């Protein structure tokens, strides 16, 4: 089988330009890989449409200024796709065929990128483990024995990028739903500044935390994709009116000063990860970047997770209240309208999100609002204020994206220890403040990847990419995928 799709978007574009491959070659390869999916990554398939479009593009001249012409990709199944079933990974939406495209899908369509399939996710993007969706578990493709998970909620999109079914895949990130699986999947995972990529067409989980983002296998690809999707959209009232500028070309020499949050590092116990991070920081300094260790009240950091789980669950109850089987979705019959709605929701929702909804509704109850929901939002404010101040001083703050490599299928963490509360959940800071935040591969441990997280201040997406590009050069895992990991291991990574 061909393995063109292990290349980056930029590399594929150059092959297309030179006429060495045709769009249909790429799409056929993507389809073949999707058909052989062993990691449970996919939802609705779009093979016929994709091929039709590829054959049309075969006949056209490849435009030199459009990187996305003829490039196959996969979209998370919480992005609305016109005419193609979109379920959000939930039985309640089985059979729902949207009548409109999400803005990101429309943009990629207009750029002649080719969507070959939808990828699965934790049910309605809640859960973060890659095991709560209606398709069951999503396995980490770096472990052929399927003992490890890829993580979620953008589990399917992480798999299809890591196993190079496609060179990029769209996802969404409410707490860390792109950046965490990117860490477990050795990927570049990006979440932009809030308000830059339109949320129109994204199934809402918690709207002031929800971001659309994506997976690629190089920082450069992530940056050009950002330039394509970074557009004002009148359909999204939270779309920023700020004038948009391109982040490319990136200039790593612009990176001057980064911060490391000491309390995040000290909550990590994995020696391998700490070592890789230390070596990387050393090399940053060698290249003339000032690295400061900054202290943040650990009480504040430990409150991130409770604050996140309360805000997101509370708002999720409301955001999913439209799922009642009346207008669309998998209606179950009943004798009264209440029974119809009850049966639909009762049979349609999985256990985990039912628990989240109950938690969320508790937080919103009149007698609890101040003590729970509003307090969580005050915590959010305290955290955002703190990190705004830090990010005003630095190009970014950096830390390992997670305290471990991918979780085992049946592994759970201790929900009350610092490693979990801080290192496993601090990425939500990026959602609290709407910051641009990226994960890139940092190292490998027993054949499983772990990532580095870089977060910059709002609207400093360019800076975030530049820190990432410099870091990618230092770390040397650019282009990592399941098909080339052995070469990297041989190099001693």
């Amino acid at each position: 089988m061909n393995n063109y799709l292990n290349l980056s978007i930029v590399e594929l574009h150059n092959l297309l330009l030179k006429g060495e491959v045709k769009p249909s070659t790429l799409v056929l390869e993507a389809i073949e890989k999707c058909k052989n999916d062993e990691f449970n990554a996919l939802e609705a398939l779009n093979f016929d449409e994709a091929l039709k479009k590829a054959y049309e593009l075969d006949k056209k001249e490849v435009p030199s200024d459009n990187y996305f012409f003829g490039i196959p990709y996969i979209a998370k199944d919480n992005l609305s796709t016109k005419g193609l079933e979109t379920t959000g990974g939930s039985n309640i939406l089985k059979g729902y065929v949207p009548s409109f495209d999400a803005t990101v899908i429309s943009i990629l369509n207009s750029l002649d990128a080719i969507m070959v399939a939808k990828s699965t996710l934790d049910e309605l993007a809640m859960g973060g483990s890659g095991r709560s969706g209606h398709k069951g578990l999503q396995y980490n493709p770096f472990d052929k024995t399927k003992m490890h998970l890829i993580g979620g909620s953008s589990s399917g999109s992480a798999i299809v990028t890591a196993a190079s079914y496609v060179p990029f895949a769209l996802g969404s990130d409410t707490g860390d739903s792109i950046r965490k699986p990117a860490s477990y999947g050795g990927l570049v995972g990006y979440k932009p500044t809030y308000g830059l990529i339109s949320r129109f067409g994204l199934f809402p989980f918690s709207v002031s935390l929800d971001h659309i983002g994506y997976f690629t296998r190089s920082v450069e690809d992530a940056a050009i994709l950002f330039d394509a999707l970074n557009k004002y959209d009148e359909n999204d009232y939270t779309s920023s009116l700020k004038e948009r500028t391109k982040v490319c070309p990136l200039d790593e020499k612009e990176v001057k000063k980064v911060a490391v949050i000491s309390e995040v590092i000290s909550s990590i116990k994995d020696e391998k990860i700490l070592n890789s991070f230390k070596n990387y920081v050393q090399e940053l300094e060698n290249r003339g970047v000032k690295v400061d260790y900054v202290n943040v009240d650990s009480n504040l950091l430990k409150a991130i997770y409770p604050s996140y789980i309360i805000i997101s669950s509370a708002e999720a109850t409301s955001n999913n209240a439209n799922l009642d089987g009346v207008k669309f979705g998998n209606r179950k019959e009943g004798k009264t309208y209440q029974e119809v709605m009850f049966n639909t929701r009762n049979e349609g929702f999985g256990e985990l999100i039912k628990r989240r909804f109950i938690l969320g509704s508790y937080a919103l109850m009149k007698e609890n609002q101040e003590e729970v929901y509003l307090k969580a939002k005050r915590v959010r404010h305290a955290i955002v204020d703190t990190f705004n101040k830090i990010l005003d001083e630095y190009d970014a703050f950096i830390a390992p994206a997670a305290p471990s490599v991918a979780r085992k299928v049946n592994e759970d963490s201790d929900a009350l220890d610092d490693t979990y509360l801080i290192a496993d959940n601090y990425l939500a800071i990026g959602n609290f403040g709407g910051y641009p935040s990226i994960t890139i591969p940092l190292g490998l441990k027993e054949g499983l990847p772990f990532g580095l997280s870089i977060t910059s201040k709002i609207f400093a997406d360019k800076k975030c990419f530049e820190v990432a590009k410099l870091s990618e050069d230092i770390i040397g895992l650019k282009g990592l995928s399941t098909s080339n990991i052995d070469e990297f291991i041989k190099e001693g990574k």
Partner: protein
Amino acid sequence: MKEVNKETLKIAAEKLLFDMEDSQYETLLNEFHVIIKQLELMDNIEDLSSYSPLSFPYVDESFSLLRDDEVIEETLLNKEEVLANAKEVRDGQIELPKVVG
């Protein structure tokens, strides 16, 4: 916080229009015990009450654009499209068992 026990959780579920298995309420109750401990962590933050509840990542002038009162024809759905995703349809409308006040 309103008392949390299996009974109150079940009532909360009913209001959300679903139910769970008994064992699932057990799981949830245990989860609540953990979350309540996690919530207590919020009380360790100094001066928390001086922060207002934050509803948006940031708010600036860049959002405040009111929409002109004009129909956007391209986004209108025709009747067939409206009904296409509804399971029960009658006389061009979506049907439910009789709704009584």
